[in-house]
């Protein structure tokens, strides 16, 4: 089933909503009063970028973009764990 003509109309609307959400997350990253706030916002931004890559895969019809989404999800988790470990132990373990 060819769904190109539905996706070509519908996905730009979803892109607009996601870009508005990205702007709000970036406001929190720049403003954030403490480091944990910034880490939380970067976390959300990375997970949403993973979704955005998936949507771009559908829009441009290039299947191998989706592999980047998996790496992005794991990267955000590593950032969380390192910041949490630094605050608890005051060191970054190896």
């Amino acid at each position, binding site marked *: 089933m060819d769904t190109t003509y539905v996706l070509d109309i519908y996905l730009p609307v*979803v892109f607009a909503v996601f870009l508005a959400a990205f702007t709000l997350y970036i406001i929190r990253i720049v403003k954030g009063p403490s480091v944990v706030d910034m880490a939380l916002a970067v976390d959300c931004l990375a997970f949403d970028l993973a979704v955005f890559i998936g949507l771009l895969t559908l829009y441009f019809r290039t299947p191998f973009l989706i592999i980047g989404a*998996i790496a992005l999800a794991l990267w955000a988790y590593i950032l969380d764990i390192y*910041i949490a470990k630094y*605050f608890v132990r005051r060191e970054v373990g190896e």
Partner: protein
Amino acid sequence: MFEVIEWFVFIIGLILITIGAICDLAGALGLVRFPNFFVRLHAATVGTIGGAVIPLFGIALVSAVSSQLGPFRWTVAGGAVIAAFLIMIVAPAGSHALAYAAHKAKVVPVEPKVCDLLEEHEKRKAKEAEKK
């Protein structure tokens, strides 16, 4: 018959993507508007589980019936499902670790506070260590 099932799956996928976009915008608004870190954790979880896991499942459904992607549409569907499950496991663990670290290191004040059992437990433990 098969065509009808494909349309059904496609529309369910689009609905999931729409729910994800709305949850994402709500989570981002909450992250900007909420007053302190421990309240913002709630908005962040709306933004990750509602705004990232659900649309990834939608992307998997939509790509599984989109024949314009060719045989690689199963690559997109599988990658989206794997990413969705990873985020579903990883996002609560990460935000929990951040909350625990922020509480333990006292980076942010626990402001509207009624009862803080973790703090009391740590105080009691420190007192017992002093006695010994």
